[in-house]
């Protein structure tokens, strides 16, 4: 039996978190947790050990790049999301250790997997 990839969704908008969970689970991912800001995201990563973190760039307490900077070397791969365009964050994304970026409207299991390969 195929092991589902465990995903942590970090976003401060509940409606987006709900939609994202439904889409990813439909596409074969296992959403093991949700976080609404940077601090709770770091705690969840530490406790839940997800295989993948879906991280919104704009968070109430800090932005996604700050969260990335605070992650340890053994942290899981991170894919950044935002309702803005990738070109808004082109430079910082390339300099960061994130695996990739997906605009929120285009989120699907397929786009996510393509980044993990």
């Amino acid at each position: 039996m195929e092991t589902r990839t465990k995903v942590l969704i970090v976003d401060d908008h509940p409606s987006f978190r709900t939609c994202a969970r439904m889409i990813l689970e439909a596409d074969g991912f296992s959403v093991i947790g949700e976080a609404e800001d940077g601090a709770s995201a770091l705690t969840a990563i530490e406790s839940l050990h997800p295989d993948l973190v879906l991280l919104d760039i704009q968070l109430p307490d800090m932005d996604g790049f700050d969260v990335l900077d605070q992650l340890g070397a053994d942290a899981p791969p991170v894919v950044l999301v935002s309702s803005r365009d990738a070109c808004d964050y082109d430079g910082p994304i390339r300099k960061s250790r994130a695996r990739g970026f997906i605009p929120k409207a285009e989120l699907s299991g397929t786009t996510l997997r393509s980044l993990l390969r």
Partner: protein
Amino acid sequence: MTRRRLAAAVALGAILYAGALALVLRDDLGDRRTLVFMVIAAGLIFTVTGAIAAMRRPDNRTGAQMLAVGLLWSLGSLQAASGSLAFTIGYVLSGVAFVPFTLLILAYPTGRLRPEDRWFVPASAAIVVLGPLAIALFDPTPIPDCTDCPENLLLITDTPGAAKAATVAYALFAASIGGALMVRLVRRYGRATPPLRRVIGPVYLFTLEALAALVASSLVRTVSETAALWLEHLALASLALMPIAFLAGILRTRLARAGIADLAIALGHGTPLRDALADALGDPSLDLAYWSTERQAWVDAEGRALSEPITAGRQAATFVENGGKRVAALLHDPSLADQRDLVDAVAATASLAIEKERLQAELRAQYRFLETVINTAPSLLTVVDTEGRMRNFNRAVEVASGIDDDRSRLEGAYFWDVFIDDSEREEMIQRFHDASPEFTAAEYENAFTDAKGKDRVIAWRSAPLADERGNVVRIIAGGIDITDRKRREVDLQRQRDFATTVANTIPSFIVITDHDANVVPLGANRAFCDATGRSLEEIGGRSFLEIVARDDEFAARMAIAGAANGVPQAERESRWITGDGHELTVAWTATPILDQSGVARVLISGADVSERKRQEEELRASRARIVDATDAARRRLERNLHDGAQQRLAALSLSLRLAESRIETDVDAATEILARAREELTRALEELRELARGLHPNVLTDRGLCAALEALVLRSPFPVEVVAPEERLPMPIEAAAYYVAAESLANVAKYAHATSARVEIFESEDGHELVVQVSDDGVGGADPSRGTGLRGLEDRVESLDGRLAISSPPGGGTRLRASIPLARRPLPL
């Protein structure tokens, strides 16, 4: 002629004439005896008188010339000799005495021959020698009718025709030169001055008579020997008398000395000096000139200057000296130059009188000089008697009195009637009488209206004049017309007052310093003193740099030094420190200037630009805040879009995709997802509308301020009363008023804890401003310096030249009042 020569000549004459007499007495001359005796007598008279003249007037050659005539004359007597040789020599040289005679007569009375007369001497010599010589060559008996005369040794051939021709030629030549001589003498007499005529007259008369007789004799001889003989007698008689006339002429000086006693008597009787001198010298044209030591010039008896040189015209001068200095000059006929002794004697006799006249002339000259000075001086000078009447005055007094056409009106007039106005006359008269009898020196100024109606101011100075007993008899008063000076002083003072008023009224600072930047006394205007809080006395003499802030001091010192060197300085800004330590920002210039005494100074003029600087700073800060506020608004909008509608639309996109993937397999689930998606879309639209309203209320543009405010307060969490004009206003003013109200209500909602609020919008009483007033019943205590909301409102209002006022006592609610001009003020140029 020396005495030795004279003695020798006299001795020679004695021998010659002794010989001649011996010859004449020995021979029997028949009827020619008389003539021969007359010839010898004439020659003797010439010799004797010539010797006397040469002895008495050795300086004059006339005596020697007469002596020469006399000596040569004797040679003629050789014709009476019985020997042929002596006879022949005597005949040929019989006329040679006429050569010195011609010289004598032409040179008389000076004894010196004039250049134009010189040719006479050789011409006459040639004629008187060659004539007899030529006759003797052809005539065996050259002396007519002399039957017993000795043989003519010169005879070459007895040719009566040639002899006759020679005789005629001789006569013609002799007559010609004699005629020329006569013409010359007549002309000379005609041109001579009267004194000269008196000297030459007798001599010329005898000469002309003798010459005429001789010439006539020569001409008549060819016709009648008898007539010729008689004419010769006449000529000889004239010639014999001529030496007496010569002697009388040249010895005239001696004779004139007798007149000196008459001169002394005449002067003693008060005859005018010039007339007495003219009589004594026999020169009616005589004049006198006096040397004025004061003026170093020759003057006449009246003290008037004479033109130089004083001997102009036909006059000669003999200077009269006293103690080795020239004191006077006798201007006389040049002929008197020959009578120096006489002139000197006359001058010596009259020297006292001349000196007296000279002193008088000098006094007159000084008087004239003083008179001229006094009358040409611009100062007024008058002599007043002890009653106050003007006894003498100069021209300036006439001019100043206004009575300058009739001197007699001022003579004897009371001083105060002329120079003192009616209103002050009594006082002046009283002062004058009070000063009597000493009339001590005094000075005073008086203003009056002269006789022509002109206002004048005279500065007077008076002093008493006392007689020999010490009594004051006159008061001399000198005055200067200072009318113009007074007027100029008044004008100058008016100009100074004007300049001072201007300097003390203008708001600009004016300071005047020396080249070391020290403020000159009274060298600052009121604006400067007021602004710097220092008095004039305090700042005078102190360095201007003391008030300049330390950081700006060097530049200020350099600017003042540059201006002191004549270079105007460009405007600069410095900080000045006032007496109480405040700092002013002053824009000032330093300019080279000359003060009223012409001393180089530095003019510092400046204006307080502190307020302008503060406003500029405020404007800069306000602009920066507006930019910041705009940036913040953009950020807020982007954030709102991102956080609101954008998030909802992203989620909506995901929901639609999820529904799409479920619609085939699980219709119920898909339907539920679509229902949530529709709710999400509704909220997204609502948020977008809210956002758009926040950007600019559409109702404000379409319906105006009142409608927009009513729409605004509908969403307010507390009741708001709106009072606003229905009519439309210019868009920028409506917008400003709307945002003032909207942001004020937002602030009320955020901070005031109010239960109600009120918005009133109305025009000010003068109709120039729109007033927006927002009040609430909240907690108060709003502080514009702390919150950015109020500061933002302030910027918005000030950008329209408006004002914002806030009253917010703690616990007393807040009242905000914005005044927005309805018409923009024109920008200052």
